[in-house]
């Protein structure tokens, strides 16, 4: 059984990094994974997509994720620009960076977290933009339970040793606590 994830963000928000951290966390638990960008040129601010697969067995499939189990939305304004629900399986999980219930209709479990607020409260900014990819991962852990929060925290810390890693790990922990299911 392969779990398939799709991340929606804007170029520069770190959707690809989020996918890679998730796979790194799964790898820490002895599982296999695959993280890749939507194949194309990326431009800062433009809508971008990244994918991840996690499995207990080595993954040999190499194609774009067409029917994800989990969709993660790093920027709620994307709802107006792209159909983030495209292909999401029945009973699938939607995790949205939002203060409010996005009012999604359909057979999905919907989780929200104010990842932007958490990032700003911890001073996580790069070139003026709040860094939301690490906090949203905390919410993904809460929503799916697929990997443990400890693995995500360890993966974040090993990616950015020092203070930067601590702050990002803290963001993931806070988001894990604050994420709520709205549907």
């Amino acid at each position, binding site marked *: 059984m392969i779990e398939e994830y799709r991340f929606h963000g804007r170029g520069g928000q770190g959707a690809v990094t989020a996918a890679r951290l998730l796979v790194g966390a799964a790898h820490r638990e002895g599982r296999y994974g695959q*993280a*890749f960008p939507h194949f194309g040129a990326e431009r800062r601010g433009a809508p971008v997509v990244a994918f991840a697969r996690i499995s207990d067995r080595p993954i040999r*499939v190499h194609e774009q994720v067409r029917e994800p189990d989990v969709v993660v939305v790093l920027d709620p304004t994307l709802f107006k620009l792209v159909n983030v629900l495209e292909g999401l399986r029945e009973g699938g999980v939607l995790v949205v960076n939002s203060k409010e219930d996005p009012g999604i209709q359909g057979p999905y479990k919907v989780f929200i977290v104010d990842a932007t607020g958490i990032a700003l409260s911890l001073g996580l900014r790069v070139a003026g933009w709040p860094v939301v990819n690490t906090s949203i991962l905390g919410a993904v852990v809460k929503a799916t339970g697929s990997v443990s929060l400890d693995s995500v925290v360890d993966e974040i810390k090993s990616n950015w040793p020092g203070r930067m890693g601590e702050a990002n790990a803290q963001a993931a922990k806070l988001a894990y606590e604050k994420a709520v299911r709205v549907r």
Partner: protein
Amino acid sequence: MPRKILTGNHTVAEAVKLARVQVIAAYPITPQTTIVEKLAEMVEHGEIEAKMIRVESEHSALAAVYGAAAGGARAFTATSSHGLLYMHEVVWWAAASRLPLVMAVVTRAIGPPWNIHVSHEDIMDQRDTGWIISMAEDNQEVLDLVLQAFRISEDERVYLPAMVGLDGFLLSHTAMPVDVPEQEVVDSWLPPRLPRPYVIEPGSGVIMGNIPPDEAFYRMRHSMQRAMYNAKRVIEEVDEEYYKMTGRRYGGLVEFYRCDDAKYVVVLMGTWAGNAKEAADRLRERGIPVGVARIRYVRPFPRERLREKLLGMKGVMVFDRSVSMGRGGPLHAEVVEALEAKPSIMGVVAGVGGVDVGVRDFEKLVEDFVKKVEEEGRVYVNDYWYGV
């Protein structure tokens, strides 16, 4: 053996480091760029004792590592698509000079129109140059093929440069687990390059690129061809040696997946072989005995190995991710020749320009082919374009 999560391009850089490459020159081009970026970082941090030569083009990049190899160094370059075409003259030159060299080719479409996605047209364009040409299925194999390429290229029975192909984005930008062998293990298996087959050095004059009698030229080409045929055996030996060191082997020139009891076989190369294998498994669940023959080396071409295994098949389907305009898929043409068109054979051109071809696509196409063969007896389709 530590396992790391690496993109295909960073895997190439890890392998180059493990091979203790001494001279690197490369020019950035998508999707190859992060190979040379990572290597530049490694050189800067002193993680690898190599000279990084900055160049203004791919033509110069290969010329620079060619010069380094002529001077006795273990040398490496990497490119993609238009970069590979731009260096094409030196590609021939390096091979005919019989110098050991390794180049990673991140496969990508050739414009126009502009396209940065996977296609095999760039690497297939190099078939006649005299380079050993291999293609990986996943990042683990990328690491293994790069390390093995140095062994094969430097083997005295070969002395030909070697390309390692990895699919643009599908591997180059996809992070997945890779077992990275320890440096000491690689060192024990891949000793420093010997000054062979010749080395240019101050004080002993050597003339390269002079004009020989035509008959000598002809003999040199024949010598290259002999070396290519020798490489078939060397590649299989190296696959076995590598297995003893790492516990991984792939079957040498071609990997046969569930072919022993198959009646139908899919022939292809590169990353999408994983999708074809998955499709084969699903078709077998429905009682259709399908296998996959994954070409690992386009040159030398595994003609004999394919004949041994596939001559008795009922049907063979060849998937090409490039096309020889006016003929069809180049792999298809080679398979038809190798099998003397004895089984039913269908050539499919697909996935060109990065078009995603997934498990379900393979499932459907193979099932349709099987049905047609079962109904009509013998089927020959030379050049089928899927979804056009």
